[in-house]
């Protein structure tokens, strides 16, 4: 059955509609792959029975010729999405045993498009991390290994279980969420495609909140075309999320024309960091050459606030998190640790339920919002955020999309960068500004580092112009011809 786990969404769609295999056969192959992927710790819950029931329903639709956009496509769902009746923990002990009585809008849309749920993907606790080392239920392993080095590597984060599952061929695609790079950086580390849409494109309703002004759901896939198909099924206005944009969802797949002639591709010179590995610089230059060869025009642009985006993010995100995570109090859901008084119960519950990184961020957020510090930290960061967004606005006067590396390094070993939170935060230096400005961005696997690990390039676009982002990304994907596979393949080679 291993051939079925190699398919992209587009290929599986054709095979299902052409009756080359059934949705049940496709689901069975992936259920076996999910089980075989257990050494990666990529799943927190497996839902094989539900997958088969959904696949059978998909087969009936296929037989009637009523197939929908994602009919029969087996997906991993990041554990941040509430799934009705299925354990949803956000990778945290504080949500031990939580089975939501409702379904998130994005997953509901995917099921309404015919998709099949394989299980819930592991992640950094509350999506706070860039390594999947902060999962309450153990670290996720990247299916890739450095050449000649068997040490386990991180898959990136926070959507690390999703990325590992898709890279290892345990799921055709997965949902992710991206607050500061949590889709794009793990996609880069695992050699897959990951897209963060424009803020407001996908509903946040039913997604466990981390930093509400930054969080956005998106697809993680093995091709740009798949990202276009899946984003189309996830996106759309939702009255239940007041920041969901009441704008039509274009046919993203139709945007993949293969023609980028005349487009201006911005290259931000502030992204040429001191000390960035030469091979990432070289890969970036190859990307510039590829789009040029396809008839686009590279233009040097400037994003002067780049350096300040990360510290601004590390005020805004923890501030919002400290507020959002106030709801975990041991009263309405999840963990409760008794105490002599109500306050003591809160304190005991939250001490036992939150891991070190979550605790660190809640404390930072509480501090920057506390009386006397609000103006110096939070207000200042919100002003810098305005300036970051203005930088992009000025750049998009001169170009149509930006092309950058996704991350300043390839995947690192589990345990590296553990003692230095700031070194860990720097992983997101190229992705965080995009969230602050609410823009769409995608990571496309573009090559291998000298040690054999995948590296991604990022395309950033104007708000609600995912179509152009996808179109340019597909050109890079085609030019790169990335066919390398990880060392560990749950779904066979």
């Amino acid at each position: 059955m291993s051939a079925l786990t190699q398919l992209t969404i587009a290929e599986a769609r054709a095979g299902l509609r052409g009756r080359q295999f059934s949705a049940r056969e496709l689901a069975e192959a992936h259920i076996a792959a999910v089980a075989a992927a257990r050494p990666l710790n990529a799943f927190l819950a497996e839902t094989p029975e539900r997958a088969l029931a959904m696949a059978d329903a998909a087969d009936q639709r296929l037989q009637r010729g009523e197939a929908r956009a994602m009919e029969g496509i087996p997906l991993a769902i990041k554990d941040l999405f509430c799934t009705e009746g299925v354990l949803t923990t956000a990778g945290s002990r504080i949500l031990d045993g939580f089975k939501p009585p409702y379904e998130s809008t994005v997953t509901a849309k995917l099921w309404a498009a015919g998709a099949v749920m394989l299980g819930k993907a592991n992640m950094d606790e509350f999506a706070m991390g860039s390594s999947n080392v902060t999962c309450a239920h153990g670290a996720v392993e990247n299916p890739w290994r450095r050449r000649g080095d068997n040490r386990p590597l991180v898959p990136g984060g926070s959507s690390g279980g999703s990325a590992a599952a898709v890279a290892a061929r345990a799921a055709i695609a997965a949902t992710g969420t991206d607050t500061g790079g949590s889709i794009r950086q793990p996609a880069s580390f695992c050699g897959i495609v990951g897209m963060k849409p424009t803020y407001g494109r996908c509903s946040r309703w039913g997604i466990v909140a981390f930093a509400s002004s930054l969080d956005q759901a998106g697809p993680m896939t093995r091709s740009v075309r798949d990202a276009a198909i899946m984003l189309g099924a996830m996106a759309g206005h939702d009255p239940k999320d007041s920041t969901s944009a009441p704008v039509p969802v274009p046919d993203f797949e139709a945007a993949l024309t293969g023609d980028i002639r005349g487009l201006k591709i911005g290259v931000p010179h502030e992204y040429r960091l001191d000390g960035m590995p030469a091979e990432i610089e070289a890969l970036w230059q190859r990307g510039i050459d590829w789009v040029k060869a396809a008839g686009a025009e590279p233009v040097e642009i400037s994003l002067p606030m780049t350096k300040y985006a990360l510290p601004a993010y590390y005020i805004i995100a923890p501030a919002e998190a400290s507020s959002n995570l106030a709801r975990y109090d041991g009263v309405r859901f999840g963990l409760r640790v008794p105490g002599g008084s109500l306050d003591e119960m809160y304190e005991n519950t939250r001490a036992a339920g939150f891991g070190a990184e979550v605790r660190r961020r809640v404390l930072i957020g509480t501090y920057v919002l506390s009386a006397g510090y609000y103006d110096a930290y939070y207000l200042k960061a919100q002003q810098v955020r305005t300036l970051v967004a203005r930088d992009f606005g000025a750049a998009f006067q001169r170009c149509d999309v930006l092309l950058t590396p996704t991350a300043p390094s390839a995947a690192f070993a589990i345990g590296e960068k553990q003692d230095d939170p700031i070194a860990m935060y720097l992983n997101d230096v190229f992705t965080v500004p995009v969230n602050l400005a609410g823009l769409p961005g995608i990571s496309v696997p573009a090559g291998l580092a000298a040690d054999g690990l995948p590296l991604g390039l990022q395309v950033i676009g104007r708000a609600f112009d995912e179509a152009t982002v996808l179109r340019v990304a597909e050109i890079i994907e085609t030019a790169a011809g990335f066919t390398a596979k990880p060392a560990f393949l749950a779904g066979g080679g």
Partner: protein
Amino acid sequence: MALDKATVAKIATLARIKLPPSEQEHLAGELSTILTWIEQLGEVDTAGVEPMSSVAAMELPMRNDEVTDGGCREKILANAPDSAGGFFTVPKVVE
């Protein structure tokens, strides 16, 4: 800014997270490092810059003031660590 142990203890209380005294010193160091790094924002001239309150270029939508949901007490209580008589329970707060 360097945070001392007393400040860490205070914000932990505000955040309702029990912090054993043995961890205060370590956390004070960690949080101070992060805050010092964050303070490079002081280099940016933000005089007269409007703070961003929403990245979505849209007004918050209005709707009619009417009940659109409800009648699902059982579902809401189903995840409670403890409930009684249709209510969440908490330790006694009034003597």
